[in-house]
């Protein structure tokens, strides 16, 4: 039995079910994300990984027709609870998207500060914040001389690290990453994996990836999602990354991680 000894349940999903209109796409997802650990979500295309990760910071409800049941607890507090403002949730739980999406009308520096400005907060010692955020995303050396250039002048890999830095500047407690490396070359991918390792010392990370090696390299625990023949997607196996990849319990997990389907 792959059972995790959890230091502290930082973020938890309880019985998450998701619908798009009448279509049931996720069923009974129960996952625990311990503090300062990296959790990888793997599974074939269309099984609902992106959908699930979007429920974790209330981006899901922005899609017309989206439905949800269950709860997501951050430090024991339901983020879908009455009176909880989705905007506050998204400040605490940051997100990095599949395609790099820096704001094209802003400079590199403005992009880093954009989160604060967008959420209406005061920016004190901006320069320091910009530098630490860029350093943590290990892109500081590449951009320190061109902070006022437009962000879209960067390469794809740099843009993605800029987006990570942009999220880091908000000092989120949790960072959600939906296939952050899928549009990048191997070199950039490696840099981002290093970044993930580094920042996981101070925050909880959930990452969706199609890359088995990446999951094994960066994560401590792994959840395998699967949607079979028109059934809603669900978690087939969840446990320490070691175990899920080397000693899977479910034969379907075994097939998937060994590349037999999906």
């Amino acid at each position: 039995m792959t059972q995790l000894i959890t230091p502290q349940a930082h973020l938890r999903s309880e019985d998450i079910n998701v619908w798009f209109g009448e279509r049931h796409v996720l069923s009974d997802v129960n996952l625990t994300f311990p503090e300062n650990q990296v959790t990888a979500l793997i599974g074939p295309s269309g099984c609902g990984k992106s959908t699930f990760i979007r429920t974790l910071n209330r981006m899901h409800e922005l899609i017309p027709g989206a439905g949800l049941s269950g709860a997501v607890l951050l430090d024991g507090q339901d983020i879908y609870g009455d009176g909880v403002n989705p905007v506050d949730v998204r400040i605490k739980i940051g997100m990095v998207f599949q395609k790099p999406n820096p704001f094209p009308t802003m400079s590199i520096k403005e992009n880093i500060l954009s989160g604060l400005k967008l959420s209406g907060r005061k920016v004190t010692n901006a320069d320091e914040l910009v530098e630490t955020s860029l350093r943590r995303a290990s892109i500081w050396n590449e951009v320190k001389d061109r902070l006022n250039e437009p962000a879209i002048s960067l390469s794809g890999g740099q843009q993605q690290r800029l987006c990570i830095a942009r999220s880091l500047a908000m000092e989120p407690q949790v960072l959600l990453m939906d296939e952050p490396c899928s549009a990048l070359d191997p070199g950039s991918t490696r840099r981002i994996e290093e970044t993930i390792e580094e920042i996981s010392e101070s925050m909880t990370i959930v990452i969706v990836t199609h890359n088995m090696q990446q999951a094994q390299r960066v994560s401590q625990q792994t959840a395998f999602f699967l949607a079979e023949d028109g059934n809603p997607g669900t978690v087939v196996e969840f446990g320490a990354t070691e175990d899920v990849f080397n000693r899977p319990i479910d034969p379907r997990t075994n097939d998937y991680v060994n590349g037999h389907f999906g």
Partner: protein
Amino acid sequence: MPVETKPAPQRRRLTVKPTLLGDRIFFGITTGTAYFSIVLVVLVLIFLMIRAWPAFQHEGIGFITGSKWDDSVQPMIMQIFPMLYGSILLAILGVILAVPMAIALAYLIEFLAPKPIARVVTLLVDLLAALPSVVIGLWGLFVFSPVAEGWAKLLNHYLGWLPLFANTSGNFSRSPFIAGWIVAVMIVPIITSVTREIFSQMDRDLINAAKALGGSMASTFTKVILPTASGGIVGGTLLGLGRALGETVAIFFVLNLSFDINWADLTEARGGSIASMILGKLGNASDYERSGLMAAGVVLFITTLLINFLAGYIVNRAQPWRK
């Protein structure tokens, strides 16, 4: 992991409505402006209706079906059929002239011409669209009318046995034929732009497939491009028809209005146009006559609104990718 049967999960209510004060204000204002556009259209209808009521009430259905406008009797008689019919005749004539031009322009721009030429022609069409109707009217009166009169005489000379080109009065100026051309010039851009849009969004693979099957340019055009784009072309034509019905100043300059109904003698100097009639008569109309003109405005407004709604519906349906 066998799935146990258990009660269906309870859906939670998700925040669809903005909760923040700032967002509520933001969406409140924008929703307000959107509703204002509804209010505006309704207000137009209400105000015209109020003023038009005496005329509608007195004339009844005859207002639309009758053919007399006489202020020598008390109360005066106001019936607009010749104007209504004239408007429709002009619109149809304009569309007949404009649609081939528009399709040709769109085909040239999207399929035939090399990029630089296509760009120039696009510019041309956009420029034509930007010309105010008063400028076209001025040109129509002094430059185009004499030329078109020549064409009309020629048509009458060779095709005079057709009722369309018969001309008993011998007066060829300010005829529906001339005004129809002016209308065509005014509506070519809109039909072109809708047709072009449809052409440009058309699946290139479909066209390549037709060519790969050995289709010539011409057969690809008639068998593939036109049928696929037909919905959009019809929609664009309807939009043009709507514009044609509402065209005012340009027609005012080049058409002789007459309540002596002209069914189809295109080259006679007798025609009708509701919009121009309103413009021509409102200045020195009595209170009651003004009511009749407002009523004519109501008829014009409702007709164009319906045509435009229909056109919009057809164009949108012809462009499923435009959600």
